[in-house]
């Protein structure tokens, strides 16, 4: 033991300093047993210089991105928390279905299928009848009128911003559209109720006067305010910025080479837009339209102020002051609703929710399909 203490202990610092200085030397690391041992221990979490790559067990730890699983702890923690947060939308959607469904289930069972197909809503005389067909139909009628107005306007506007307008003007227009998108629906409702209704009612009267022979523009009430026509315009004002913004973005991403090629082959600007830009942007435009449709279906307050809610289905007379909208109906009935009626309103909300879900499902499908066609 004495020998060990006397000779080896003083040697220890010497040996370590020599080996460590040798380890620093890459030649030694690659050739000696000590060096390889050192590398196999130390390099598990470290990248090494490329000169040592050819030694077995000596490759840098790969980092996996994309679909591969991550290896380090911090990465696992990070992606785990992100996944939990990302699934919040699933949780919320499921919770909406569950809560609205479970609360309204008794009423829906009691009313049966006529909850959707009937057109009567009454709580008088102790008999509670809740049927929403006119509101359901009216919701779609308003949205379709809004889309018919909004789609051409927004697509032209997007084309104008991207291709035609001088640079300064298109910058200004972009801001204008952003402002229009940001105007709250409450203000649009206020404006629609106190300013726009008068003008639009006059236009409705004119349409009826000169084009009244078309069934669409018939009016049997001698009154033109609070009609689906006006509701459609108000919706259009809210949809236009949505479709325009989306279309503008996808149109602006049209590859310049393709546009140049089309022009270089002698195509006119409109030809280039028709054959290159619009096909390229079709998926995005459809997506924007669907976004707008979703907004239109669920719009509440603006419609509440500019539309007469009648529990009697108005199929096509868009100038008649009779219409429906589920969302507005919920607000209109909510204040003085009986407990059972509240559950019926939750049921109506459930149906509105499912409807908008399906619209989005369809939107997804259409956008994906158009993208696939573009690739093919």
């Amino acid at each position, binding site marked *: 033991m004495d020998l060990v203490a006397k000779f080896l202990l003083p040697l220890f610092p010497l040996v370590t300093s020599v080996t460590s200085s040798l380890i620093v030397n890459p030649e030694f690391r690659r050739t000696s047993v000590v060096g390889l041992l050192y590398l196999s221990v130390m390099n598990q979490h470290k990248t090494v210089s490329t000169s040592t790559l050819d030694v077995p067990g000596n490759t840098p730890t790969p*980092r996996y991105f*994309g679909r591969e699983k*991550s290896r*380090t702890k911090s990465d696992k923690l990070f*992606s785990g928390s992100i*996944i939990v*947060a*990302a*699934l*919040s*939308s699933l949780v*919320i*959607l499921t919770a*909406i279905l569950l809560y*609205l469904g479970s609360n309204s289930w008794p009423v829906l069972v009691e009313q049966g299928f006529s909850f959707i197909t009937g057109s009567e809503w009454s709580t008088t005389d102790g008999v509670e009848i809740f049927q929403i067909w006119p509101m359901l139909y009216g919701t779609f009628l308003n949205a379709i009128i809004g889309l018919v107005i909004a789609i051409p*306007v*927004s697509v*032209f*506007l997007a*084309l*104008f911003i991207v291709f*035609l*307008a001088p640079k300064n003007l298109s910058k200004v227009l972009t801001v*204008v559209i*952003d*402002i*229009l*998108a*940001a*105007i*709250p*629906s*409450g*203000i*649009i409702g*206020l404006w629609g*109720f106190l*300013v726009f209704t008068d003008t639009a009612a006059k236009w409705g009267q004119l349409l009826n006067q000169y084009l009244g022979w078309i069934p669409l523009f018939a009016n049997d009430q001698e009154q033109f305010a609070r009609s689906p026509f006006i509701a459609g315009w108000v919706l259009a*004002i809210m949809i*236009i910025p949505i479709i325009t913004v989306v279309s503008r973005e996808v149109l602006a991403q049209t590859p310049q080479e393709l546009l140049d090629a089309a022009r270089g082959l002698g195509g*006119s*600007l*409109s*030809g280039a837009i028709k054959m290159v830009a619009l096909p390229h942007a079709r998926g995005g435009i459809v997506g924007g339209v669907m976004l707008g449709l*979703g907004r239109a279906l*669920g719009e*509440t*307050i603006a419609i509440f102020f500019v539309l007469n809610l009648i529990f009697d289905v108005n199929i096509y007379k868009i100038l008649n002051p009779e219409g429906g909208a589920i*969302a507005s109906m*919920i607000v209109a009935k*909510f204040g003085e609703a009986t407990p059972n009626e*509240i559950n019926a309103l*939750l049921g109506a*909300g459930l149906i509105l*929710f499912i409807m908008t*879900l399906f*619209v*989005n*499902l369809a939107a*997804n499908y259409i956008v994906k399909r158009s993208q696939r066609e573009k690739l093919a």
Partner: protein
Amino acid sequence: MTITLDKPINSIKPPKPWAKRNKSTVVNNAIAVILPTVVLGILFFTTEIPGPVLVVVVFFPLQLLTAGVTSFMDKGKRGIGDSLLSVGCVSAFGLVVALLGSVVLSVIARGLPAMKFNFLFQNNIYISPTTELTYGGIGHALLGTLLVVFIASIIAVPLGIASAIYITDIKGRAAGFVRFMVQAMSGVPSIVAGLFIFAAIILTDVVGFSAIAGGLAYAILMLPTVARTAEEVLRLVPKEVRDAAVALGSSRARVTMRIVLPTAKTGLITAVVLGVARIIGETAPLLLTTSNANNTNLNPFRDPVSTIPVYIFQYLGSGYQTSIQRAWGAALVLLLAVTILFALTRYLSRNKKGNV
């Protein structure tokens, strides 16, 4: 390979696209611009038909026709499409500017008379729909809106940006699914968000009508807007930037937090502001979750709280002259708030060194 020419080379005239427009183009353009305007002017001053009707019924079709015909004369068949395109574009532009102008101008013109000092700072206690405008105001509603939007933001912004990161950066197995869910969620109507929070929290007596309920309802509406915008912004971060960070040996968390998010900073701020702008004027969910109050209430967990959209709704419904003026005043404040938000984003995202 040799090129054979059927004519001597100096007899071929180059097309010279840079040359000045010839006279007929100028004349044609002038006709396309002047003729419809002159017809409109003559009809406007000689007949009793109101101006807007003339614009839609006479001017617009005539403009389309003249533009089409003159450009056909000028450039042949190819010109028609171009001219119709430009007429359509300018008309759409005019329509949107007219509508927006009408909204903004009427809010400003009718809201200004209500703008007194007290209107911004007093609350609504002891105020009836017919009280003069020198008493009472929207102070309580302003604070309430700030409170509700703040609650919504602290819930929705992290969740939304996390969803976007999951889709664009982590690209996990469920990326498509999460994307689909966010998309489905963006279709949730505002009234349904309100109904859900009402059914989940208020009917079950967790809390009553309160700011926290309103904030939760707002968060549901805000999340998809933030997530979708953030996703689009994160997609714009060049792949090379990510690759470079990976090649330098950074971990996934580090790449996202230190490289991708800062690169997309301005876009993310825009996403948040768009989310706020999406919700700030929503009335329907608040009617079902915060209800309405006349006093100032800063406790988010108890008692109804007033907000500007609900204030507008309340005073518009009562129908008196002064109450409608109050509604316009509140609308003006809301519009100003939105404008300030927008100016803020513009200021924040002004281009420094060509950021994304």
